[in-house]
């Protein structure tokens, strides 16, 4: 997501924010929960971009991850399960001047809210969407989610889950008007920050799947990836992620990938091993629905009066000699 240059400048000169300006309350997530790192990354992102807290809205659905807005000292909307996206769309349509982030879980977005996910991509409104994908239902205490790997033992699948996991990236990359798709993992904070920053700067719907640890219900599940850097495939490109020396040294499994290449992006998204991390796809030219619909246009009482009068004229029976 971007904003007008003038406002950027204004904010840069007017306001300098500290991390503390974005902090609110004490997160209640479990120790080691990946949501903690996502939260602090978002707070850093807000500070580094000097987002005015009163002009920033975090919208979420229901789930552990959807608690995130409560810990941001900005405006927030903790909605109903699955409906974060349509709520956020309404916010953005009414107020395109606001910066809107969405936090949603794998159940929230890919199961109960699946219809909204597909259509949000099509609307391509200027929203930054964080899919906190822990591959399980956390809040309701361990049921299989659409991204739980086949065979996942959970409270509703004690013998192991029956179905192949859904791949949120390939589905997302198949929807008309998709304009930004990336993948991050919560345990590489530097890249998480860079990817979310790129997502925030993109104008249009930025969809970031964040592979998120849930030590409570998927203990140790991501350890093999955390322990072996070669099981992560870093996507780099001059117009995508550029890597710091430290990252480049640790994560040697790298791939030069041009984010404008959607076919290659789809191929990369289909390979889940090693986990691709970086920007898979970006197209800056997809129109935003709020622009197409002229959201935020100034409206006057005079306009309404004239519009109403013109319409009433179509239905009016004038008595002879009446004033028109």
């Amino acid at each position: 997501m971007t904003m007008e240059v003038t406002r950027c400048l204004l904010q840069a000169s007017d306001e300098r924010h500290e991390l503390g300006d974005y902090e609110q309350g004490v997160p209640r997530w479990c120790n080691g929960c990946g949501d903690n790192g996502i939260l602090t990354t978002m707070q850093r992102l807000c500070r580094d971009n000097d987002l005015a807290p009163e002009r920033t809205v975090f919208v979420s659905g229901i789930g552990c991850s959807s608690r995130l807005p409560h810990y941001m000292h900005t405006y927030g909307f903790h909605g109903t399960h699955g409906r974060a996206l349509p709520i956020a769309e309404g916010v953005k349509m009414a107020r395109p001047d606001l910066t809107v982030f969405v936090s949603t879980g794998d159940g929230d977005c890919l199961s109960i809210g699946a219809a909204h996910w597909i259509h949000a991509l099509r609307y391509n409104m200027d929203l930054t969407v964080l899919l906190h994908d822990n591959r399980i239902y956390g809040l309701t205490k361990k049921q299989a989610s659409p991204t739980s790997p086949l065979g996942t033992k959970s409270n509703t699948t004690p013998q192991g889950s029956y179905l192949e996991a859904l791949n949120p990236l390939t589905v997302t990359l198949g929807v008309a008007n998709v304009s930004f798709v990336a993948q991050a993992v919560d345990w590489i904070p530097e890249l998480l920050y860079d990817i979310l920053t790129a997502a925030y700067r993109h104008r249009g719907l930025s969809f970031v799947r964040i592979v998120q640890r849930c030590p409570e219900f998927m203990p140790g599940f991501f350890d093999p990836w955390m322990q072996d850097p070669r099981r992560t495939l870093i996507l780099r490109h001059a117009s995508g992620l550029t890597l710091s020396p430290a990252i480049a040294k640790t994560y040697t499994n790298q791939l030069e990938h041009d984010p404008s290449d959607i076919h290659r992006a789809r191929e990369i998204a289909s390979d889940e091993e090693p986990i691709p991390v970086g920007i898979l796809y970006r197209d800056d030219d997809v129109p935003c629905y709020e622009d197409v619909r002229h959201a935020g246009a100034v409206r006057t009482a005079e306009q309404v009066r004239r519009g109403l009068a013109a319409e009433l004229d179509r239905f009016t029976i004038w008595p002879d000699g009446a004033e028109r």
Partner: protein
Amino acid sequence: MKEAVTLGEHIVEIVSDSGEGAQRCGQSLGAIAAKSGNGVWTVEIIPAEIQPPARSIAGASGNRVRLGARRVTNGGDQADLVVAFNEQVLLGRVQAEELRPGATILLEGRWRNDRDPLVASAYAETYDELVGLGYRVLEIPMERECLKLVPDPRRGKNMFVLGMLCGIYSLDLELAREQVAITFGKKDAKVIATNVKLLEAGFAWAEENLDFKYRIPAVRATEPQVVMNGNTALALGILASGMEICAMYPITPATSASHYLSEVFERVGGIVHQAEDEIAACAFAIGASYAGKVAVTITSGPGYSLKQEGIGLAAMAEIPLVVVDVQRGGPSTGLPTKAEQGDLLAVLFGTHGDAPKVVYAVSGIEDCFYAMITARKIAETFNMVVVVLSDASLATAQQPFPRPVFSEDWLAAPVDQTPVPPGARPYDWDASTGLVRRFIPGQPGGMHTVTGLAHDRESHVAYDPQSNEDGLRHRSLKLAALQKTLRCPPVFGAAEGDLLVVGWGSSKGAIEEAVEGLRAEGHRVSALHLGFIQPMPSGIGDILRRFGKVMTVESSWADRPAEDPIVDADNRRYSALAMLLRSRYLVDVDCWTEARGRPITPGSVRSAILGALAREAVPA
């Protein structure tokens, strides 16, 4: 020249296969009569399917037009005159008992000599049957006459018929010509000229060939009037209310309101968003309301059911929202195109938990317009969900009403972006009214997260018993606070008597017409019609107690103890309003209902009232 017989009122129907223009003919007739100063109510006759087979009983499409010397408030009972383009659609109306015994029928006669022998014999058979039933059937060579003027008579017949009807009802031909020009306003002059010729031909044909002619005395209005249907009035009301965003998902019979709004809203800076489903439409409207001015979502029963969770969220987080439910027959997919008042309890109590919301039912076309302005204001003042109930019969019915005069007070104030005073909390409920000032994104110092979870005054999630009851209490108090400002609706008729009929919604005109008639005959019956159903204005209990009996009239299902012996006092299911009145006022309220998918008629109310008056005690 034949003498025109003067009538107080008359009901005429024009029916055809769909696509033959009977609806346009009926609407034009209504407009011409209204311009002449007649009272008018038009009702659309809609086939249940988009493309019913031609010449089918279920395919009748058209309009009923009730013309009166006085203001007309409903579609009336049975038709006095019917113009039918074929005998099968006519048969549909006869079987539905929509024709008065002995009614006059003007029937297209070309089918008698149709090349298809099956068609010809079906026609002849039906003709004989109708004559046998005592109808006065006149065969009219509509297509043959039109052929003299146009190559394809199927496309011009409706204006020929319009001309005939103008002749029959002694309407001014010049007014009719003007109306044709308006009707075809978007087409070129040639089209208008052709249709005017057809109109004139029909007028002349009726003058020369029919042995009857009517005149309904008219009083020309001195103030400008508008003629439109209920859904158009709803849409214009939304435009006039200052709401700027409408999120919807298509559903009959609500969609036409959104269609019309889509056509006009952008011109005044408004947006109609067609969402992916009703859940999204509701959530979108809530998001828009939360961040700016009150938004609206329009739907019908099945869509309303899907919105229920969102409505609970708006109630809990105290986000203003206007929801329009244009009711149709239910449950489930029910009767998509037909009227019923079956959603009241779902709207009042439908979402889980205690979610107080305001419910207002419109009772006429003009009401559809002003209700939207009131709904927006209440939603905003009280940070509440306001549900406006209409139904399929009001959706398409047309009636003239005084042209609204715009006032800037109708509009919402600009979105508040001023800093929030230090120390103010997002839910600083007023102790006596529950009211609270909402903080809107963009207001410095107001940052907080709204939530559907139980919360304290800071909007922090709070599960403790005090916080929970604190929230419930203040959200509930708002209804009491609103209730104190509402005026009790007037009693129609005397303030006391043997029977009070209570109704809500679209049945108002029919109920009052029946009551007026019976009062003229000396019956001690009055009527009370509710607009606000939640909260109910003060004073209703006192009114109920001044009558020997109270009975609601509603278009929905309720048990019928007299017909079903298994129903008794212990298990009888009352209609929605009767149940509400019984529980609130501890008055023995009876109910009469029908769920026939059509508007309640004065005739059926009349017999219901006579039945209730005759019954000794209210059967329980």
